């Protein structure tokens, strides 16, 4: 059997949106290289509960890197050290005996803490609500193959469409901008003929909503692209800007 090793954890505790937060520290010596990062936290929580203490809350669901629920900031990096990997897919073999690991929630004014490492990302829902869709009622669609779409175009649309809505881009951005998330949806839909009809209305509505939610502006730091678990290209933001300018000034 693979041997267990020890890590020193420092994690954020906050008992509610208005409570004062603080770091708690604990050493965990039953870590195994095959564990995922979140399984390591499960083990921590089992230990805490057996001592009658409250577990640390963190968000997750699929644990396969696709639902976008998990969003820990690990040693200052959204989703941790592995490129193109959500933290639920990060494995403890990326750490070694004696490592110090600091775990924080993604910090942004638009993402208030709910408890410990869990934050409220409903702002993302409201950005989609503002226009991140094609207005097609059920039953009113035409035959799927009636309109061919170039394979290359469709592939580009797909790349943007893979955003999992985790919010790492916001956490990593010095301005806490949601531009990569918003741009990804706009760029996905604007590639496709189905999405182009509403493009002007969409881009204005979504960008305005983003500002209203308290996300910052984009100053091209590029941190968002670096942490994005789906490696969404920052060109999404350029597409969004271009469409915005076109919509507002034409």
């Amino acid at each position, binding site marked *: *059997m693979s041997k267990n090793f020890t890590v020193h954890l420092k994690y954020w505790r906050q*008992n509610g949106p208005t409570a004062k937060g603080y770091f708690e520290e604990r050493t965990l010596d039953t870590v*195994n*290289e*095959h*564990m995922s990062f979140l399984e390591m936290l*499960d083990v921590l*929580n*089992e230990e*805490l*509960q*057996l001592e009658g*203490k*409250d*577990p640390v*809350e963190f968000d997750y*669901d*699929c*644990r*396969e890197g*696709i*639902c976008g*629920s998990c969003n820990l900031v690990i040693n200052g990096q959204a989703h941790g050290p592995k490129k193109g*990997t959500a933290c639920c897919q990060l*494995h403890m*073999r990326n750490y070694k005996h004696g490592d110090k690991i600091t775990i924080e929630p993604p910090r942004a004014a638009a993402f208030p803490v709910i408890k410990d490492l869990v934050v*409220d*990302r*409903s702002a993302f*829902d409201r950005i*989609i*609500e*503002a226009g*991140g*869709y*094609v*207005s*097609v*009622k*059920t*039953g009113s*669609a*035409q*035959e*799927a*193959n009636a309109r*061919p*779409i*170039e*394979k290359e175009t*469709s*592939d580009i*649309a*797909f790349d943007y469409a*893979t955003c*999992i*809505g985790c919010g790492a881009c916001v956490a990593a951005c010095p301005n806490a901008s949601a531009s990569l998330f918003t741009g990804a949806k706009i760029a*996905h*839909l604007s590639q496709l003929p*189905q999405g182009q009809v509403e493009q002007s209305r969409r881009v204005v509505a979504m960008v305005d909503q983003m500002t209203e939610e308290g996300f910052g502006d984009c100053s091209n730091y590029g941190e968002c692209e670096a942490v994005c678990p789906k490696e969404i290209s920052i060109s999404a933001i350029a597409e969004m800007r271009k469409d915005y300018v076109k919509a507002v000034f034409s």
Partner: protein
Amino acid sequence: MKLESKVPEGPLEHKWESHKKNMKLVAPNNRRKYEVIFVGTGLAGGAGAASLAEMGYNVKAFCIQDSARRAHSIAAQGGINAAKNYPNDGDSIYRLFYDTIKGGDYRSREANVYRLAEVSNNIIDQAVAQGVPFAREYSGLLANRSFGGAQVSRTFYARGQTGQQLLLGAYQSMMRQVEEGNIEYFPRHEMLDVVIIDGVARGIITRDLVTGEIKRHEADAVVLASGGYGNVFYLSTNAKNSNVTAAWRAHRKGALFANPCFVQVHPTCIPVSGDYQSKLTLMSESLRNDGRVWVPRKKGDDRHPNDIPEEERYYYLEERYPSFGNLVPRDVASRNAKLVCDEGLGVGETGLAVYLDFRDAIKRDGEDTIRAKYGNLFDMYENIAGENPYKRPMRIFPAVHYTMGGLWVDYNLMTNIPGLFAAGEANFSDHGANRLGASALMQGLSDGYFVLPATIGNYLADVKPGTRYGTDHEAFDEAAKKAQDDIDKLLSIKGKRTIIDFHRSLGKIVWDKIGIQRSKEGLESAIKEIQALREEFWKDVYVPGEKNNYNKYLEFAFRVADFFELAELMAKDALDREESCGCHLREEYQTEEGEALRNDKEFSYVSAWEFKRVNGQLETELHKEPLEFEFVELKQRSYK
């Protein structure tokens, strides 16, 4: 109780059309006056909520996750079937229907399955119109692939993320309706009970998962689209929040639960590595097209797999099933993997794995070709298992993946409680004893986009608009009090064992005895063990934290409590079914060669269980809906 399937009269291919013609309608200006609740916003619930809201109904949509976009449907990889016949390879609605009913080993309703095949094409149209970026050919037209052993290419896909793209399509349509004020949206809310007044579903009780507040919601119809119950096994490919609570609480209120023992196990998952394991990761079964499955012939052979010579390798699928070899259906592949491991031939640290070896494929086609086909899967494997599958065979093991059983519904997707509907994986309707690959997404979206919008209208047409009892009605009081009492009880136990510890123990019983292979003896002992463990749970579980705050472990606690009761029902159902069919293999009912032996004469029925009470043991009554096959001829499966 008489179970009425409400299947319309007439020839198979006209049933749905003529039913739609005959159904009652609600006038557009009256739709505003009706409230419809959706519990769950996965493919089924998201599609249904959006569609009903577009029609003008007032919809309330609830989900556990912080956004509807995160429902478990998001994880589906492989694709979605439809009978478009774009490749011109002889597919048709009838063939999709036939494959589905045969794949389900003749334990589903003909009429439901036919309708599913019939609307499958509209789903693809709808998704494309929403901007779902399905794979395309260089011609710009949609691409198809063959999937799960089908003889035609009818699967539409968006790389390995088909579920994600389809769910985002439904989610976006739903958010449009939120914006328009037709949907009131409740993420991070969990349904804890259905409220029934004079025998009719009239609302639900929820817990706000952030504040802990118990809330009451009144409605004219309630749809449960709450997904499957695979997590009763603790380890499964399901998302961590997947659960049976919504369906089970409805069951406790009188809704019948059908075929609970029909559970699909997927053969190609990454094996368990230790006790801390929290879920299992599926790898596409397309890998079996090129990988060869084997174990060492010698017990305890711990040589590096590449050092084991050809004659000492047991390619058990190829030997036992010469014509299908590594491509036998999911259940056959899973069962054989378990059998060889039971014989002590399993590999890896735990002995619970078999090899899936690409050595010969790489030799034949070159590493680049294999990389082009499976690169992302190989990367995923390496990331999780820490081994390079180009150099060393993968280790795989079966894992629980999908539950065919669920709430009993009639042709209109209504449970036996008027006003209470069930859709998607939460109902039992279309897959019989075994589901074919790429047809769960199809069913969820068919239910949500096309079936419910018609049948709910038909139901509401007979409900007086504006009927309101008020959420202070005694039925709401009672249900809300029960929900709160259960939570208080769990929090007050303050025992010594954690929830996960209990769940893991329950899962082990269910996996060992109600899993891939079942026997009378095993099932009877499972029932006793489940009862004993349940009793211990209610005495010794430790539930941390407070009720009025975000508390994930408290959520798990009541979901596990419900899994205990469901597990017992699964065992009873498996005991009752003295035959082997689809994924249900009873050791006593096999051919001499060890193949499943169906018994159409005695067991061609849907088992629909009625809840009575839990008093040390689960007390239930079985109702049977006979299955009649007017249009297809029943055949035994054979993969030899």
